[in-house]
């Protein structure tokens, strides 16, 4: 394993338009203000409202844009359609089932091959590593995609704080197992709890974040609150939600989907239009809200930032 990995430095302003940057405290304040405004405007037509009744803290429409000029999806779209099998396999049913899921306080245990293992609360993490806005494309393996303005901090900052030992090569992520609150966990066809993994250099890439909010506000339960991983150049299922454990290990961790169907869901699962899933074409995708399909981009459009991680690797073999 190459230990001289490097974290590609990106000028923040490249990712986040300055005008959209909000510190955690600022956004808490603006969220509170916006919540009040929304409460007043709740009966007005066009108030962004999801079916579980939660309201977008800020008006998301055309305020956000990714670095390629794609407008972000609306809060309503992002919160009402996603895969979260801990709740249900129906992507339209997650929001309703997650409506009462408690996301705060939230603990996440960072341990394993580290010098400073520690259990953090999400509030602590937000204080230690000021969340920044990252507007990322999210590509689902089923052929649809979203553009989402996350609030989060680079995972590398947390790793720096816990100091991985020299043996650590990979990071293992584990999602909460709460069958009383997550009805999907009673479905025994899955090897719960949800698990994911990254190579240490992938985890340290500046694009990899832990998100604790989105659209300038809290991270809704259906989108992975209290805290989730976001790895924008990989298919959506790699970005594990509702994390309770982050473990540094010296092996390639099992992942839930890889355990179910190893020939279909590889460890890497990088977005790659040239490598079809054995059952689905990955050449095109539909951005939620669009009528037409669009071409899927190599590494979901993040090739310049992450291509170095896979230099010399056969991406057909390492799918």
């Amino acid at each position, binding site marked *: 394993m190459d230990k001289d990995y490097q974290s590609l430095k990106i000028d923040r302003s490249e990712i986040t338009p300055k005008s959209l940057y909000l510190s955690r405290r600022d956004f808490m304040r603006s969220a509170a203000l916006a919540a009040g405004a929304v409460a007043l405007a709740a009966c007005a037509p066009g108030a962004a409202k999801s079916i579980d009744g939660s309201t977008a803290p800020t008006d998301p429409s055309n305020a956000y844009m990714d670095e390629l000029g794609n407008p972000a999806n609306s809060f309503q779209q992002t919160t009402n359609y996603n895969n979260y099998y801990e709740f249900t*396999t129906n*992507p339209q049913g997650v929001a309703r089932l997650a409506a009462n899921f408690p996301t705060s306080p939230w603990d996440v245990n960072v341990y394993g091959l580290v010098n400073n293992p520690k259990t953090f609360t999400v509030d602590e993490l937000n204080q230690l590593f000021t969340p920044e806005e990252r507007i990322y494309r999210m590509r689902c393996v089923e*052929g649809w995609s979203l553009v989402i303005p996350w609030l989060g901090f680079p995972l590398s900052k947390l790793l720096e704080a816990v100091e991985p030992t020299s043996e650590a090569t990979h990071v293992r992520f584990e999602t909460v197992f709460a069958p009383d609150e997550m009805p999907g966990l009673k479905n025994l066809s899955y090897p719960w709890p949800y698990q994911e993994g990254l190579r240490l250099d992938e985890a340290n890439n500046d694009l990899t974040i832990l998100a604790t909010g989105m659209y300038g506000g809290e991270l809704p339960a259906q989108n992975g609150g209290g805290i989730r991983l976001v790895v924008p150049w990989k298919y959506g299922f790699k970005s594990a939600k509702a994390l309770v454990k982050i473990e540094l290990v010296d092996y390639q961790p099992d992942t839930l989907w890889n355990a179910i169907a190893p020939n279909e869901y590889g460890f890497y699962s990088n977005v790659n239009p040239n490598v079809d899933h054995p059952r689905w074409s990955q050449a095109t995708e539909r951005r939620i809200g669009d009528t037409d*399909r669009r071409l899927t981009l190599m590494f979901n459009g993040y090739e310049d930032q992450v291509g170095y991680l896979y230099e010399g690797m056969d991406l057909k073999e390492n799918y």
Partner: protein
Amino acid sequence: MDKKIEWFRLVVHIGAWGTLLVLILVNFFNPNSVNPILTFEHHTGTAALIFLILSLAGTPVGSILEWKDFAKRKKALGVYGFMFAAVHVLAFLWLDYGFQFKFIFNVVKNTVYIWFGLAAFIMALALAITSFKKMKQLMKKNWKRLHRLAYVIAPLAVIHFFLIVKANILTLQGNVIEPLIYGSIVLILLLVRIPPIKRGLINLRTAIQSRTRRPNPV
């Protein structure tokens, strides 16, 4: 039972067109429908499968449960199954891929589940266009032979479904419950056609009927 309004006939026709209307409204005229095209594709596929299964149920329901009105509608149910499959395919070609045949060709070529869906669809098409009385008279023995394909269409559609869900069919891990339910129903509907099983079930029915009648003779 003499002057009967064939209510089941009404149920079939209203049920089919009503379902189509509801699926269009729920997906395309509903502000909470976030991914309408993919969802409509799923809904119409499921409706096609359900109507094909109901059609497959016609014969055994008629002979074993003696519900003759149901059996009489098996052809209509099958044609509606084909109708939903046609809407499903149209949704795929038009709504999903905008008739961009460059992409469609690649997807069909590389996607195994579509091969099974296509096989089922072509057979259903053949049965639908020969479903008229005239055709039956014209084709004579061959009509019966051709219409035995009905036993193959539903299993192919179930395989199509199994291959779409994120699951492992061999270990039954993943999102297997729905296709498993439809698959089991199809399997049962095929098994009850086997003569000894069929005879056994008919005897069981008459035994239950005579027992429940005894304390209260007509």
